[in-house]
């Protein structure tokens, strides 16, 4: 069926990748001027569908019509000519160019052989005023915040006269205040007649901003619903195919003695000579979950690296169970702490090692895994891997022999969580343990973390997701520009308040 209102019409789109059908016979109409959300778990096919629209993938079957005309979008340039623009999850900006230079890159205005920036500047400034996209045209990208970079990306699309705007998980990197601003901008754009496609797996945002929502599951379109009248619970259920609980079930914490004690920790960046972590002191006790909140890049990562030994400390002390670990090696620290790292591909896994090798990464040198003359005991490797695979339900194509690279993100993360939790250390450090995972996997990992706490482990977690922070934490530490802005009780503060601490607006009085 065709609908004359529809600006985009997907008909029976099928896109296959080796071993998987990413989009399976998807037919969907997008109305002109609406904000249409695409909701789905990781690997549900929402990004693939948008990539097909933007010309980055060619579908095996099916057609796309835009403004009633069937089109073949063979590459992004064609998409741009058709008035389609996309803000990618990872911005595509030249760091050492200015905002203005980035916006006009590829569409430069010229006078003869020379650049004529004045025309472009005028146009960009007009656009930014019209849509409330505050920018500083002459600031370098490397000097501006993530939110500003995103506005720069949006202006890039508008400058190219895009009418159909695709946002790929645009809020993942923003503060609550920035998210509000973005929502406002999106609504404004829709009002001016732009059509917005909005990929997300955050139900709150979809409720807030979208007109309609299409839910994808395992490559298939499950339903297209009115976003305003559908409940969050219903959307969540359709997305994962089962009921999900949004709240982390946990008893009140019963903290005991200190396990981790950080005293006046300072880390200075080698290049900028800036104190990225500035005189930070806190402690984590047995049986509690302390979550470090903050906007990306405010020293949280460095703080964790300082504690785990991956980055040298300039000043201060790290004590675990009363013992000084400031100068100890990573291996020595690994004996007393487990670390679910921020970047699972960089630190957490050796992607070209099989799953069994990866699961043994913290154990391979221990008795049983290796004999006295240095030969590995592969029976033990296999046994141990199978044990963890069963216990933590890690799914992969070929079991323990699967290369980590070919596993899904959720199962890669499960493997790391399994390995680290099984170390049974007194201290568990979990950095963004649910980043990029779908609702089912998030629920699972939260449960594991709470179980560890209930087993009297000390848990230090770091997260950028405020909902997660509020749900999981027994105590919240907010960091801003390398300093602790406050230690908060999640039961006594609101999300907005935490947001103010995160933005550096509010600060707890220093206790004497």
């Amino acid at each position, binding site marked *: 069926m065709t609908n004359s209102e529809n600006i985009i019409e997907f008909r029976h789109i099928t896109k296959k990748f080796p071993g998987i059908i990413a989009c399976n016979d998807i037919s969907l109409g997008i109305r002109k001027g609406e904000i249409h959300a695409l909701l789905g778990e990781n690997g549900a096919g929402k990004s693939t569908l948008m990539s097909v629209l933007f010309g980055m993938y060619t579908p095996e079957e099916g057609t796309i019509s835009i403004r009633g005309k069937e089109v073949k979008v063979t590459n992004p340039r064609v998409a741009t000519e058709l008035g389609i623009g996309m803000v990618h999850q990872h911005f595509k900006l030249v760091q050492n160019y200015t905002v203005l230079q980035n916006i006009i890159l590829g569409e430069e205005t010229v006078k003869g052989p020379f650049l004529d920036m004045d025309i472009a500047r005028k146009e960009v400034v007009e656009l930014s005023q019209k849509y409330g996209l505050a920018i500083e045209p002459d600031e370098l990208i490397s000097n501006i915040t993530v939110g500003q970079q995103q506005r720069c990306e949006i202006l890039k699309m508008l400058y190219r006269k895009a009418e159909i705007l695709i946002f790929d998980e645009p809020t993942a990197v923003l503060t609550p205040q920035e998210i509000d601003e973005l929502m406002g901008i999106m609504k404004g754009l829709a009002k001016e007649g732009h059509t917005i496609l909005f990929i997300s797996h955050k139900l709150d945002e979809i409720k807030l901003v979208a007109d309609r929502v299409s839910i994808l599951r395992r490559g298939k379109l499950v339903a297209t619903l009115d976003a305003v009248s559908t409940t969050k619970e219903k959307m969540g259920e359709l997305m994962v195919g089962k009921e999900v609980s949004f709240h982390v079930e946990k008893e009140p914490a019963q903290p005991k003695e200190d396990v981790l004690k950080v005293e006046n920790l300072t880390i200075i960046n080698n290049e900028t000579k800036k104190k990225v972590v500035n005189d930070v002191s806190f402690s984590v006790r047995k049986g509690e979950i302390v979550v470090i909140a903050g906007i990306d890049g405010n020293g949280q990562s460095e703080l964790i690296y300082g504690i785990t030994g991956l980055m040298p400390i300039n000043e201060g002390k790290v004590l675990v169970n009363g013992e000084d670990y400031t100068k100890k090696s990573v291996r020595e620290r690994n004996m007393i702490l487990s670390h679910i790292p921020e970047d699972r591909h960089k630190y957490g896994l050796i992607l070209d090692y099989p799953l069994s090798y990866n699961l043994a990464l913290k154990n391979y*040198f221990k008795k049983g895994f290796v004999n006295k003359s240095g030969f590995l005991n592969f029976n033990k490797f296999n046994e141990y891997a199978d044990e963890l695979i069963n216990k933590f339900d890690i799914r992969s194509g070929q079991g323990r022999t699967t290369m980590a690279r070919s596993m899904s993100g959720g199962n890669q993360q499960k493997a790391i969580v399994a390995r680290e939790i099984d170390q049974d250390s007194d201290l568990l450090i979990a950095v963004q343990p649910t980043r990029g995972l779908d609702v089912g996997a998030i629920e699972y990992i939260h449960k594991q973390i709470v179980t560890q706490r209930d087993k009297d482990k000390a848990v230090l977690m770091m997260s950028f997701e405020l909902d997660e922070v509020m749900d999981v934490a027994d105590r919240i530490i907010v960091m801003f520009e390398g300093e602790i802005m406050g230690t908060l009780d999640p039961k006594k503060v609101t999300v907005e308040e935490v947001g103010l601490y995160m933005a550096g607006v509010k600060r707890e009085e220093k206790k004497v």
Partner: protein
Amino acid sequence: MSVKPKKSFDINKYTGLLASLIAIVCGLLIAFIILMLTNPAKGLDAFMTIITGGLGMGGFKNIGTLLFFATPILCTGVAMCLAFQAGVFNIGGPGQFSIGAFVAIVTSLYFSKDLPAPLSWMIPVLAAMVAGALWALIPGILRAYFNVNIVISTVMFNYIEMYYILHWISLTCYDALKGQTRPVPANCKLPQLFMPALTQNKASDIGILIAIIAAIIVWVILEKTKLGYELKACGKNPDATRYAGIKSKRTILISILISGALCGLGGALYHLSWSGVYITFKLGSAPEGFTGIAVACLANNNPLGAIFGASFLAYLTVGGNYMQIFGFQKEIVSIITSIIIYFSAFSLFMRHGIERLLLKGKTKDANELEEENT
């Protein structure tokens, strides 16, 4: 329930081999074209001679020559396999090889020639390995502690060796009449044992056996030991290695030490052979060092694969020695091997292609996958 691992078929092992074979076939095809362009009349004959490796011309005794050529490049090839797997791009093969050769010669001339039988050749061999390792250690230290790019430093060390070695030769073992190193005393040469009988070549010795044993040992280290687990992990992901508490500086030093020692071994085995090889007194790097990279490339960095890679390149070299009969320079073989190396550099690319072909038609519905998994 979890899926039981399948033992029978590991696609990766076969695609690696297939990629190398395709590289070889492509290399030979282009070589054929070059031969035909250079001399259309004799091109086909010359090509057939290379293909049949001179087996047809020299008879069975060419096996001995083949093994003699294979020995040094197997050593350097295995050295490169280990270094590359550990992510240490040791391009210093020629230097480490020549230093090993030189130390083996000098040790036998000045020290071990008066010692009883096994020691007389074993000591020069061991000395060469130590020398090769120490020569490689310097760039290794620069890399581990000062973060100096190892490709650049090892290449620079090849130049340093190139000049220094002539100086050292002139001080110690220069035969002015012939313009080369003095011959190694007969009792310091490698034992021949049953090799001449086996290969029908009276210059054959146990060098190739030592090289093969070295390849097997390195394979065992890489695949079966804790050290190998750490070395390979370091090569695949240095950050994760650090996270796991593995000392990356130590890993870099160990891998370059072993790699240098193997290159030194190659130099010793080559120059303590019965075929009468000398270091000539002129500037230049030992080609065996660079050929090792080609061997490792063909072998997909597998030390056991290197045995076949080295034999294959040696086979071409033997055939190349007959090129002059057809009016070609024997260097034409170098051209062919380089072409094959270029193609094997594409091997990763080819592997992806092969994997795609094999996977075609095996696309599964996501729901089927789900059912299988649950």
